[in-house]
C-alpha cells in the first residue's frame, strides 16, 4: 500500500529550510575568515568578537607589497594545472581499464602513495630529484603533486565508468570498435560529471598541498600555500595577513568550481543510453 504523497510545496519548503541551516553552519566560519581579513591584525583576536567594525584593506595591501604574492600564485597555478592535467591524462584511461576488467590492483597501487604519510617521501624524493638536478624545478613539483592527483582522478571516475552498462560496450565491440575507441568515443562523454568532479578535486588537493613544495621548491618556485604559513611565528603572528592570504588562496579553487558548476548541474551523462 502506498501512503499519501506529500505535497510538492511542502517538500520544497522543507528542502529550503535544510538548505539554509546547512548553509549557515558551513558558511559562517568562512564568513568569519573573510570578515577578519578586513580587520586590523590585533582586532581579529579581540574580545568580545565584533561583527560591526570599520573595514580596512591594509592586510591585502600589505600582503601584496611585502610578499611576492603574485609570483607565488603563478607558481601554484603552474604546478596545480600541470599535476591535475597529468592526473587526468594518466587517470582516465586507467580508471576505464580497471572498471572494464574489474581488476582493481592498478587503482589500489596508485592509492598507495596516499596510504603512506606524506613525510615518508620527503627525504627520498629530495635525494632522487637532487641527483638529477631538479630541486626547485616545476617538473619536480608537478611530478610529486601528480602522485596526489592521480589516485583521486581514478577513484572518482571508477563508479562513473562502472555505471555504464556493459551492453553499451558489447554493442560497440560487435561493431568492431577497439577498446581505445570505445573509451574516447563512447565512455568518456558518458562520465562528464565525474570528470568535472575529478578535475575540481585534483585542482584543490594539489593547490592546497604544501608538504612536497616545502622540500622540493626553491625561492623561485615556492607555491602560495607555503607562503601562508609564514604569518604565524613567535613575535610576528599576523592574524589579519593570515586571513587575507587565506581568502586569496581560497579564491582560485572557488572560481574554478563556480565556472564548471553548470556541467555538474546539467550532467553530460544520461542521454538515451539507459533504460
Amino acid at each position, binding site marked *: 500500500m*502506498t*501512503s499519501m*504523497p506529500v505535497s510538492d510545496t511542502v517538500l*520544497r519548503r522543507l*528542502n529550503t529550510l535544510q*538548505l539554509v541551516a*546547512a*548553509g549557515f553552519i*558551513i*558558511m559562517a*566560519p*568562512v564568513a568569519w*575568515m573573510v570578515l577578519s581579513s578586513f580587520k586590523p591584525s590585533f582586532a*581579529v*583576536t*579581540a*574580545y*568580545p568578537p565584533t561583527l560591526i567594525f570599520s573595514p580596512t584593506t591594509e592586510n591585502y595591501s600589505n600582503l601584496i607589497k611585502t610578499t611576492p604574492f603574485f609570483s607565488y600564485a603563478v607558481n601554484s597555478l603552474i604546478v596545480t594545472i600541470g599535476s591535475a592535467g597529468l592526473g587526468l591524462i594518466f*587517470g582516465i*584511461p*586507467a580508471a*576505464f581499464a580497471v572498471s572494464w*576488467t574489474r581488476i582493481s590492483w*592498478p587503482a*589500489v*597501487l596508485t592509492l598507495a*602513495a*596516499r*596510504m*603512506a*604519510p606524506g*613525510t*615518508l*617521501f620527503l627525504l*627520498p624524493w629530495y635525494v632522487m630529484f637532487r641527483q638529477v638536478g631538479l630541486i626547485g624545478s616545476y617538473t619536480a613539483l608537478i611530478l610529486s603533486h601528480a602522485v596526489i592527483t592521480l589516485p*583521486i582522478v581514478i*577513484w*572518482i571516475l*571508477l*563508479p*562513473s565508468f*562502472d*555505471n555504464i552498462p556493459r551492453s553499451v560496450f558489447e554493442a560497440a565491440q560487435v561493431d568492431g570498435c577497439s*577498446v581505445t575507441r570505445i*573509451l574516447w568515443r563512447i565512455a568518456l562523454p558518458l562520465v562528464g560529471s*565525474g570528470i568535472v*568532479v575529478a578535475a575540481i578535486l585534483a585542482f*584543490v588537493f594539489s593547490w*592546497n598541498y*604544501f608538504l612536497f613544495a616545502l622540500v622540493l621548491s626553491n625561492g623561485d618556485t615556492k607555491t602560495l600555500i607555503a607562503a*601562508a604559513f609564514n604569518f604565524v611565528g613567535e613575535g610576528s603572528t599576523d*592574524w589579519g595577513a*593570515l586571513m587575507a592570504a587565506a581568502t586569496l*588562496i581560497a579564491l582560485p*579553487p*572557488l572560481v574554478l568550481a*563556480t565556472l564548471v*558548476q553548470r556541467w555538474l*548541474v546539467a550532467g553530460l551523462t544520461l542521454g538515451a543510453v539507459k*533504460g
Partner: protein
Amino acid sequence: MVALESPAIRKPAETFGQDRQRLELAALSAPAVLFTVGMIAFPVIYTVWLSFQSFSSTGKQSFVGLGNYAHLISDNEFWHGLWVTLALYLLSLVLQLVFGVWLALVLFHAKRLSGIVRSLFISPFMMPPVVAGMMWLVILDPSIGAANYILTSLGLPPSDWLASPTFVIPTVALIDSWQWTPYVALIVLGGLQSLPPSVYEAAQIDGASPFKTFQRITLPLLLPTIVTATILRSVDLLRFFDIIYITTQGGPGNASNTLNIYGFRVGFEFFNIGYASALMLTLTAIVFGAVLAFNRLRNAVAW
C-alpha cells in the same frame, strides 16, 4: 554441437580479438602504474631499509633487523596512538558520510540554486588545512573565541573544546567534518547526477513517498559512490595530521596524538629516523588493509 556462448570452445578469430583487447586495456592503465611505481618505489624501499636501522641520539647508526618493530609492539604510545587514530577516524567518517549524503540530496533538489552559492556550499575543503586550523583555534579559544561567546550568550555552559582531554577528539572530528562533509557531498552529488532518471520516473508512477524512494532506490544505487567517498576519506582520515599539528600538537597530554603525528615527531624532532620509519610503514599497512577491505565492498555493491 558447438554452442557459441560456451566459453570452453572459442574460435581462433575471437581468441585473437580478446587477446588484443586485453593488451589494449593493459596499455591504458600502464602509464598510471608505471608513473606510480617510478615515483614511490625508491621511497618505499628506502624507508623499509631505514626501519631496520637504529639511530641513537648522537647519530650513530646500527642495523637492528626487526628491533624497531619489536619496540613498536611494546610501546604504549603506539597503542594509544592507534586508539586515538581509530576513534577519530570512525567518528569523523560516520559524521561525514551521513551529513555528506544528506547535503548532496539537499543540493540536488535545490535545482534553482545559482552556481556561486552552490560552490560556496562546497567551499570549506578548498581552504588550506593550515588556515582552517588557525581559524578554528581562534574561534574555539575558551576565553576569547566566538564559539564560547555564542554559547554563553545563549545561557549554555562554555566548553574547553580543544583543550579538554575528553572533548578534543570529538572537537577535532567536528572541525574536520565541517571542512570535508562538503567534499563527500560533492562526490555523492556527482553520483546522483549519473543516476538514470527512468528509475525515478517508475517510482513516481507507483506513488512512492520520497523517503521510501530514497531508502529503496536511491541509496542502493548510490552505494558505489558512497564507497568511493569512504575509501578516499579513509586514506586521509587514518593519516590525520594537519589540524592536530596546528591546534594541539597531539595534546592535551597525548589525547590527540594520532599515529601520523607521533611518527612525525619521532622522526623530525627526536631524530629517531629508524623507529619513525617503522611507525610510518605500520600506519601505511593499516591504511592499506582498510582500502583492501573497502575495495571488496566496492566490488560487492557494483551494479
